[in-house]
Structures are given as structure tokens and as C-alpha cells.
């Protein structure tokens, strides 16, 4: 039973280079079951690339990722099976344009998890209800607001029963008045014990929901720790500087 103490996700020394630009220069961290980590940092510091390296939507050049006792980065691993266990929520939602909200959530259930149609529908409706969009099940993405689309995409990730969910700036493409509804759903997930990594500039969310904040810059982790520590007494001067600047911009009340 020692397993319960093991981290759910281990990221070890991930490197990624695009041409001459080294986007990730050796990133390592652990994530425990039920933990929410918020990754912050200036744009272009590799936060999104890091998330994509975790389920190999982007292939890391070097380093390892472990999901429980499975090495995700192993050459012959069943990557599709692993991806189905890792939810991914995109900045611009990426809902399937030609499918209704319900079918968006159902697709993975039917094609990857091989659920029957009836079972998949029930499961999908459950998740749409959870994000407050039961009555929009038959709407196409184009007929939903950005906030609603992002909630559908969260439902789509949740329906797969993922071990963790990666959020890549989930509110950055939203109008300010729609951000709250998405953050609320995410906060509720964290509350219910979902394991999550969230790349975001929403400092209010980071402060109130994160168990740990990771500050990244220039492809490395500069500092990580509980929100209170990073906000009150960061060990690296640059962390405090960034947090002050970003909090002015996005607000971090509380």
C-alpha cells in the first residue's frame, strides 16, 4: 500500500528545443493525488509546452514523465491509452465544430472507451450537468458563449475519468465577464479532489485554489511553493517582482 504515498505524476528533467530556441531547459516536479498546481510565469517561458510534453502532444527532447508507475515517455508506451487518462483543456477550447455539446463529450467515450451509445449519453449528460450545461446538450459550439464552450470542454475532459487534468490558460481567450463561470467550475473540481495542473494568469484563483504555485521563467522553474509563501515571502526576488506585477494586472484580492 506504499503506492498511495507515491506522487501521481512525476516530471523529470524535461527539455524541449524549437530550432535554436530552448523552450524547456530541465523542468522537474511532482504532483500528488488530489493536488492542484498552478503554473505561472511570463508568456513564452514554456508553460504550455510543458503541459503538452506531459501527455506528449509535444514530444519532449529529453527527460521523463511518469504517470503513477507508467513511464509516459517510454518509446513503446500505449500513448493513446495514457492520453485518455489525462484530461486537457485548451486556451481556445477546441471543441469539435461539427458536433453538438453532447457529441463533443460523447466522442471519446464511444471511440476510446468503447462505451455503448446509451451509456455514453448518460455519462456525458452527467458531466454536462456538472458544469451547469445540461440544457445546452444539443447546441453546437458556435451557438455557445466562450465560457460555455470552455465548460463543455471541461466536461469532455471529465467524462473520460482522467487521473489528472491539464489546463492550458483556460480563461485567457474569454471575455472578462465569462471568466468567473469557468474558474468556479475549476475551483469546484479542485474541491472535489481532482488532480490538476493549471497554467493561468488568474492570481485570485491561484491564491485561493492552488496547493502549490510554480513560477517558471526562461524554460526553468524559478521557485515553487504554497501560495502564501510565494506571495508573502518568496525566496527569489524575481518571483516577488513577477507576482506583484501580475497581481496589479489581473488582481489577486484575498
Amino acid at each position, binding site marked *: 500500500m506504499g503506492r498511495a504515498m507515491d506522487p501521481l505524476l512525476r516530471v523529470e528533467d524535461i527539455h524541449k528545443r524549437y530550432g535554436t530556441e530552448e523552450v524547456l531547459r530541465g523542468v522537474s516536479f511532482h504532483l500528488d493525488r488530489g493536488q492542484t498546481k498552478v503554473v505561472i510565469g511570463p508568456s513564452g517561458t514554456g508553460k504550455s509546452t510543458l503541459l503538452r510534453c506531459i501527455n506528449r*502532444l509535444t514530444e519532449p527532447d529529453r527527460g521523463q514523465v511518469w504517470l503513477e508507475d507508467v513511464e509516459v515517455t517510454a518509446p513503446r508506451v500505449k500513448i493513446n*491509452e495514457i*492520453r485518455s487518462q489525462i*484530461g486537457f483543456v485548451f486556451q481556445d477550447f*477546441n471543441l*469539435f*465544430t*461539427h458536433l453538438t455539446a453532447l457529441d463533443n463529450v460523447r*466522442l*471519446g467515450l464511444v471511440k476510446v472507451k468503447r462505451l455503448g451509445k446509451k451509456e455514453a449519453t448518460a455519462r456525458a449528460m452527467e458531466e454536462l450537468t456538472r458544469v451547469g450545461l445540461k440544457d445546452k446538450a444539443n447546441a453546437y459550439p458556435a451557438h455557445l458563449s466562450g465560457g460555455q464552450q470552455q465548460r463543455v470542454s471541461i466536461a469532455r475532459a471529465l467524462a473520460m475519468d482522467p487521473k489528472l487534468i491539464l489546463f492550458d490558460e483556460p480563461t485567457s481567450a474569454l471575455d472578462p465577464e465569462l471568466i468567473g463561470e469557468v474558474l468556479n467550475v475549476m475551483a469546484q473540481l479542485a474541491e472535489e479532489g481532482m488532480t490538476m495542473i493549471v497554467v493561468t494568469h488568474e492570481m485570485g484563483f491561484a491564491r485561493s485554489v492552488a496547493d502549490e504555485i510554480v513560477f517558471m521563467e526562461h524554460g526553468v522553474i524559478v521557485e515553487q511553493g504554497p501560495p502564501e509563501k510565494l506571495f508573502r515571502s518568496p525566496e527569489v526576488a524575481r518571483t516577488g517582482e513577477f507576482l506583484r506585477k501580475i497581481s496589479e494586472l489581473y488582481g489577486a484580492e484575498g
Partner: protein
Amino acid sequence: MTFNFDAGYLPQLASGLVVTLEVTSCCIAIGIVLGILLALGRVYGGRFISVPCSIYIHFFRGTPLLVQLFIVYFGLPNWGIRLSAFESGILALGLNTAAYQAEYFRGAIQAVKAGQMVAARSLGLTRLQAIRHVIIPQALRLVIPPWSNELILMLKYSSIVFSIALYDLMGVGKRIASRHFNYFEVFIVLALMYLVLVLLITLGLRWVERRLRVPGLGTAGRGA
């Protein structure tokens, strides 16, 4: 001046019409299947797949259809491949239209936003599943307007099969006209028949496009 056209020609023209429709639908069907495969090969295939696909497309777009038809009908027998006129017609036309359709399909596949593939893969769909359930359904909707041009073109170009002694509309018309020396009348009627077919196809495809339309999928700006 009289319009020298006898209603007695109509049964012959009707049989020619059937052949025209058969040739067109067969070659279009070959073209769709092969065209989609060529387009997928060009977009998703590695170099060893995409280069041969490109060569195929350039060859068939870069040489005259009539030359291709004669190679198939008169040339292949030299290699022991003996096809009937009908088979030669649909093969040559099908191979030809596949090259053009491939380019339309490729454009449509590339018009599907990149995030769609990424999102599908993030759920654990294989590349093939993502292509089949996410990319193709969107690409096929996007391709209908340009593709309908190709269908109309093939309906008209199918008339070249008269040159390998196939009695399609054109072949039948030519036979009647040369027998009765009423080229003007027969070909006017023929032209009108093609015109009506083209109009029917245009209307039919517009109906299909409307039926399959999905909000937010590339139809912005086209009549509601």
C-alpha cells in the same frame, strides 16, 4: 427555316443520357475515394507517401484528359490489359478527376483548424480515428462548394468518351446528326439537356450543403 428535330430521336437520346449518367457517377465515385486517399496522403503521409501522391496529381492535371483516355483504351491492350470502352472511360475519367478532387479535399482538410486534431488526440483517439471522426466530417462539409464545380465539369467532360465509340449523350447525338444532317438542331437539344442536368446537380448539391450545414463551419458569408 425549320427546326429539323424528330421526337423519334428521343429514345436514343434517353439511352445516351443513361450512359452519360453512368459514366459520370462511376468516375466521380472513383474520384472521391481515390481523391480523399491522395489528399490524406499529401497532408498526413510522410515523404514516401506524399511525394508519390503529388506526382500522381501533377501528372493527371498536367496532361490532356483525351490523351489519358487514349492511353487507357488504345495503349493498355499492348500490356495485355483489355478493357471495354465503358471500363476505359470510367477508369481514365476517374483517375483524372481524382487528381483534381484530391486538391479540393486537401484544401478542405487544411482548412480544418489545427486545434481539432490536437483536441482529438488529447482524448486518446488515434490519428486515424481523429481523421475519420473529426477531420473528414468537417472537411467534407467545407469541400462541397468547390467540389460541385468538379462534378459539373466531369458531367460535361464525360462527353469525350464518344471518341472511344461509347454511345453516351454526345455519341448518340453525333450518330443521329451524321445520319440526318441536322447537326444544329441535335446539338442544340443536346446542349439544353446538359444544361438541365447541370442545373439539377447544382440545386441538388445546394440542398445537400444546406442539409449538412453546421453552425460555425466555414459557411459564413454564403447565402443563409
